[in-house]
C-alpha cells in the first residue's frame, strides 16, 4: 500500500492522517503530535486487530458461543480466521476462558470462550 487515509485513535483529538510511502520512506501528514507518526506508520506497515465472533454450540441455551482472540491478529488475516471458525462446533458445557481453537492458522493466537454455557439437555 502506498497511501492510507485514516484517523489517529491514540487520543480523543482524532487527527485525520494521510500516510504515504515514497522510496521506502513513510511520510505522515495531519498529525498534531508526534505520537500520530508512529501510529500512522504502524497502520500502513503492520496493522493488527483483535477479533470477536461466535462459533456453533450444541446442547446450550443458545446456538452460538461468543469467542475472542487472546492477542492481536494481523489485520489482513481477519477474514481467514473467520473462515476457519465457520466449521468449529463445540458441545456444552463450556467455561469462560476455555481454549476453543489453539494457535489458529499458526498465528500464535488462541480463540477463547467469552462465557460459560451449561449443558441444558
Amino acid at each position, binding site marked *: 500500500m502506498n497511501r492510507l487515509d485514516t484517523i489517529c485513535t491514540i487520543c480523543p483529538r482524532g487527527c485525520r492522517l494521510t500516510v504515504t510511502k515514497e522510496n521506502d520512506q513513510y511520510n505522515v501528514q495531519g498529525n498534531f503530535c508526534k505520537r500520530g507518526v508512529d501510529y500512522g506508520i504502524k497502520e500502513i506497515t503492520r496493522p493488527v486487530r483483535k477479533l470477536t465472533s461466535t462459533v456453533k454450540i450444541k446442547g446450550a441455551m443458545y446456538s452460538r458461543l*461468543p469467542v475472542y482472540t487472546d492477542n492481536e491478529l494481523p*489485520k489482513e488475516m481477519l477474514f481467514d480466521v473467520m473462515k476457519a471458525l465457520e466449521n468449529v462446533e463445540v458441545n456444552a458445557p463450556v467455561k469462560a476462558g476455555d481454549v476453543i481453537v489453539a494457535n489458529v492458522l499458526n498465528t500464535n493466537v488462541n480463540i477463547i470462550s467469552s*462465557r460459560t454455557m451449561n449443558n441444558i439437555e
Partner: protein
Amino acid sequence: MIDVCIIGGGAAGMSAALGALENGAQKVMIIEKDKELGGILNQCIHNGFGMHYFKEELTGPGFAEKLQEKLKNYDLDIKLDTMCVKITPDKEVHYINGNEGYQVIKAKSIVLATGCRERTRYQIDIPGKRLAGIVTAGLAQRYLNMDGYLIGKKVFILGSGDIGLIMARRLSLEGAEVLGVAELMPYSNGLKRNIVQCLIDFNIPLYLSHTVVDVKGNGRLEQVTIAQVDEKFQPIPGTEKVFDVDTLLLSVGLIPEIKLLTDQKVQLNPYTKGIKVLDTFETSIPGIFACGNALHVHDLVDYVSLESYDAGKHAAKYSNDNSPVVEVVPKNNVRYVVPNQVKLNNDEEVMFKYRVTKPIDKGTLVIKQGDKVIKEMKKFFLLPSEMETITLSKSVFTDTDNITFEVRIDE
C-alpha cells in the same frame, strides 16, 4: 417482606444487588424477564468493556459473567423468565411467571434497572412503505450473536453511533456487504477507534449530514435512497443517492425503559427524558430508586456498574431523611447533568455526569450555586458523544440555591 427488590438483571440490576447486599440488605430479589442475567451485555460480544471496573478488557458476556460470579457469594432470590408488570408507591411489586402465575410482593425499597429500548423507524419518521428488512441494530445484533441468524446480505445502516458501527463490522466479517452508513449530524457519535476499525478497515463509506428519504420494495426492502441535509436537517433536492439493499439497520438512539414508573406519575427529567433522581438515585417516589440505562443512556458499562452499586447501597440504607434538596440545572453548552437534584445531607462526594451540546475544542466548565462560582475547570476536545464526569464534595454547596453547569467557550 423483601428489603430491596430490583427490577431488571442487566449490569445495572446485578450491580445494584451487590451494592444492597454489601451494605446491610438481608433479603434481596432480582426480577428478570429474560432466561438469564446479563441484559444487553450478552449480545455485545465485542470487547471494550471493563477497563475501569474490573481493570481488564472484557467482552460483554465476559463482563456479565464476572458480575454473576460476585453475586454467587451471597444469598439472594433471582427470578428469571419473570416479568414485572407494575410497581406502586407503597412499594408493591407485581410480577408474572410460568410457575407462580400473577404475584404481588412487598418491598422496603425498589430499584428500577430496566435498561433502555431502541428507537424504531416510526419514531424518526422514515417515509415509504412498510417492508420487511428494516430492523433496529440491537435486534439484528441479538439475532446474529445469540441465535446465529444473519439479518441480510446487502445492508445499509442509518446512524453512526457505536452500535451501528459495531454492527457494520460484525456484518462485514460474517460475509454481508455493508454499502454505507448515513449520519444526520455533521459528525459521528461513535468512538474514533470504531470509525477506524469498523468502517475504514472494511472500506465502508460514512455519509455525514445525510439521512434516509425513501425506502422501496415488494414485501422485502429492495432499495434505500439517502440525501444530504441542510443546517435545519431538511433534505437537499438533487443530492439523492440510491442503494440496492435487502436490509436497513437503524441505529438511531436509545430511550430509557421507564413505563413502570411513568405509570405511577414519577417526575421526569426533560433533558434525558428519563427519571428525575436525587444524588442517591432516589426518584420522586420515596423509596424507589433508578439506575443504569433506565436512568440515562450510558456509553460505558463500567459507569453503569459504579452508579448502580451506589443506587443499591442507598436503597439498602433508605430512610425518610428530610435534608434539603437542591436542583442541578444545565446552562450554556451543557445538554444535561445527572443527578438532577442533590440531597445535602452529609459530607459525601457526589459524581456529576454531563454532556455538552456541540463539539468544543477549548472551554471552561463553570459550576455555580446561585451566583457563587463553586468550581472552574479548563476542558479540551469536548464532544456530545462523550460523557464527562466531575466529583465534588457536598460540603462545597453551602446554601439552597440551584446548582448550574455551563461550559464557557475559550478562544
